[in-house]
């Protein structure tokens, strides 16, 4: 790709980028959120048309006007958000748009064909299964098979590890190496440095739409890449000095709760959390952490057990009472629970506090002037990049939305007593991640009890004072300074001594 420039209204997403990939390599494409990685690859896959620039494949200039044309050029893309139809079967998803000839659709024959194809590609899968019932890792396998079925020679993987467990990531990397050994070319879009270094042959870094450089994976390291990505040196967020642990804030006793489908999700959890402490809860997604967070924030009714907040019994409260008690929440699903997409930045900043003075005035009027002043203050303090306080929040980047949510949990006057942060940096880039973690530490230094629920082991290990691992709805205490090994074992239900 030569001199690719892409303008969107008001933004230059790619600025004269030269990007070269050799056949048979795994090439990492690295950059912060909004650096232009996905746009550049979108251009290669025909999703966007470049404002200027040319694309060459095997030395031949090509124009790629649609995904169909990209597929014809043997380019395939596995999107970050899976492009799978969840109520269709695996086989249907794989052959969709690329069905065998003939007018009629022979379910059995196609299933057989797909099963055989999957076995040959060494990515075995049951073709008759409905995609919506597969695990995330298996769905990704379907996506890769779909791309391979279209005979792709160049595979673009857009942040494929963002949704995977460590085990699934390992399996993906094995599959990627096998594909490379078959002569396929893989472009791996990512922002986790460790992963890029462990799997890629060469790495290209983008920063704010511009090419920074291309490095051999063997000749570079994490700090150098981070510097290239951000433009300055990044110091990871850690607690300076010892945490000052205070009184017990939260006590959970034999808590049980059911999940979305009525299955038992929490099997009697007990733990406590003290003021000024950050308690990390690690675990593979779907082991009960979502339900735990929901019970503590009043979004889900427990079926048994007790929750105490500084001696007050808060079992089965409503979210409103939770807020009254100073329980604040950084939700796991930002779009569903963190923000109201149609609302402005200002309105989102006061959500949850809108019903309290000083935002609520006499006769329930919203105190516009107070709200505006508050919004402007928060936007400045938390460096939320937004054209104005009245901009709809949808048009902000994910990182800025998360800054807003963090700004909101700081509360108006009173700091939270208990902060529940669920996957607070999921999908964020290096700088935003560092910022959010720094703020969590800052809050705990100010005396808040912080419950950090995260699937990112590095995150839990970096800022927690104590770590619990959740597995199948039960908690296991890790040692004081646990190794990744130990935590990984606990996450899959094993113990060190077994």
């Amino acid at each position, binding site marked *: 790709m030569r001199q690719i420039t892409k303008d969107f209204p008001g933004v230059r997403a790619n600025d004269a980028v030269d990007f070269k990939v050799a056949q048979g390599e795994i090439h990492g494409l690295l950059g912060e959120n909004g650096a232009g990685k996905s746009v550049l690859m979108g251009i290669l896959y025909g999703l966007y048309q470049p404002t200027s620039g040319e694309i060459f494949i095997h030395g031949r200039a090509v124009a790629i006007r649609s995904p*169909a044309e990209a597929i014809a050029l043997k380019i395939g893309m596995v999107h970050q958000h899976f492009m799978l139809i969840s109520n269709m079967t695996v086989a249907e998803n794989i052959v*969709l748009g690329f069905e065998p000839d003939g007018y009629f659709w022979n379910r059995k024959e196609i299933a057989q064909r797909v099963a055989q194809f999957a076995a040959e590609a060494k990515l075995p899968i049951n073709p008759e299964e409905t995609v919506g019932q597969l695990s995330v890792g298996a769905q990704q396998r379907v996506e890769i098979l779909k791309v391979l079925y279209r005979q792709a020679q160049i595979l673009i993987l857009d942040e494929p590890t963002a949704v995977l467990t460590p085990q699934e990531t390992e399996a993906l990397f094995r599959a990627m190496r096998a594909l490379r050994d078959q002569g396929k070319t893989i472009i791996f879009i990512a922002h986790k440095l460790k992963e890029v270094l462990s799997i890629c042959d060469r790495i290209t870094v983008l920063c704010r739409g511009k090419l920074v450089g291309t490095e051999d994976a063997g000749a570079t390291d994490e700090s150098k890449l981070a510097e290239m990505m951000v433009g300055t040196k990044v110091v990871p967020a850690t607690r300076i000095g010892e945490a000052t642990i205070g009184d017990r804030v939260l006590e959970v006793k034999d808590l049980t709760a059911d999940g979305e489908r009525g299955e038992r999700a929490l099997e009697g959890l007990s733990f406590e959390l003290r003021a000024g402490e950050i308690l990390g809860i690690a675990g593979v997604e779907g082991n009960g952490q979502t339900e735990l967070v929901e019970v503590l924030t009043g979004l889900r009714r427990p079926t048994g057990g007790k929750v105490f907040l500084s001696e007050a019994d808060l079992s089965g409260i409503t979210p409103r009472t939770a807020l009254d008690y100073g329980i604040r929440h950084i939700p796991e699903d930002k779009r569903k629970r963190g923000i109201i997409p149609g609302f402005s930045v200002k309105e989102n900043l006061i959500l949850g506090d809108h019903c309290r003075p000083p935002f609520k005035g006499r006769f329930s009027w919203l105190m516009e002037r107070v709200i505006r002043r508050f919004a402007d203050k928060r936007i400045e303090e938390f460096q939320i990049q937004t054209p104005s306080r009245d901009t709809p929040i949808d048009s902000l980047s994910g990182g800025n939305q998360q800054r807003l949510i963090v700004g909101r949990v700081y509360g108006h006057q009173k700091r939270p007593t208990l902060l529940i942060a669920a996957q607070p940096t999921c999908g964020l880039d290096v700088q935003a991640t560092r910022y959010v973690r720094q703020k969590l530490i800052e809050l705990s230094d100010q005396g808040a009890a912080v419950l950090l629920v995260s699937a990112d082991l590095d995150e839990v290990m970096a800022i927690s004072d104590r770590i619990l691992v959740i597995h199948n709805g039960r908690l296991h205490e890790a040692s004081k300074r646990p190794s990744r090994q130990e935590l990984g074992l606990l996450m899959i239900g094993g113990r060190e001594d077994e």
Partner: protein
Amino acid sequence: MIGIWDILDVALFAAMIRMATPLVLAATGGVITERSGVINIGLEGMMMLGALFGVLTSYWTGCPWLGVIAAMVVGGLAAAIHALVVIRFNANHIVSGLGINFIALGLAPFLSEVIWGSRGHSDIVTGLPRWEIPLIKEIPVIGEILGPHSPTVFMILAIVIIANIVLFKTKWGLRITAVGEFAKAAATAGIPVQRTRYICVIISGILAGLAGVHMSLGHLSMFTWGMIGGRGFIALAVMISGNWRPYRVLAIGMVFGFADALQIRLQGLGVPVHFMQMIPFLVTIAVLAGVMGRSRPPADIGKNYEP
């Protein structure tokens, strides 16, 4: 005193089939367009235009078959407008569909006034012939129920079967469903989302036009202003309770057809007209309230896709 068997006679069941026909036709069209992700609440208007232009063509040419073709063309054109507004210009599907209905609602009495000098109804024109099935017509009761009917009645079986085969046994059906479930995924799999949707919406208009001409040329041999009378909307209820599947649409269409036939029959027996006219709508509410079990619409329905 009127006995129950005076009401539930052979003629009533023949009327059931006749009244079910427009519902099944329009609802099958609805199934096709909605499976591709486009809502079409303009079915009512498209039926009305089909009924009107069918009569008009028969009035001018004397040939009811040309009227049928004209009705399908006009229904398809109205649908093409809806498709253009929705697919090309990203309009809200409900608003555009309502627009089609209001155009039809205004155009019909206007043309009727200009051509026949009455905004309420047209002159009587040559209607479609009545067909009987040889052999079957000899069977008592069943023979009387299944004929003689307008040819449009016999078409529904073929159309429902073809629709079912196309939707569930061919790759086009798979693609249509994919477009309606997750347009972006379909697009990245190389399927032309917009073209697929245009075709499906236009087919729904053609079927709605056919449903309309069944009401006019196949039934009364004239056009009257209120003749569609909300059947386009009932067709939507048939489509929903039929869970977007042609065979179930056929079965449920018969239930509604029965309600409609019963309503007309009871009118003839001196029961207050307005009360009886509510029957099909009461059935609609009962069915939609879940008597038929839950149904699941296509996931991307009503959502516009911009490549």
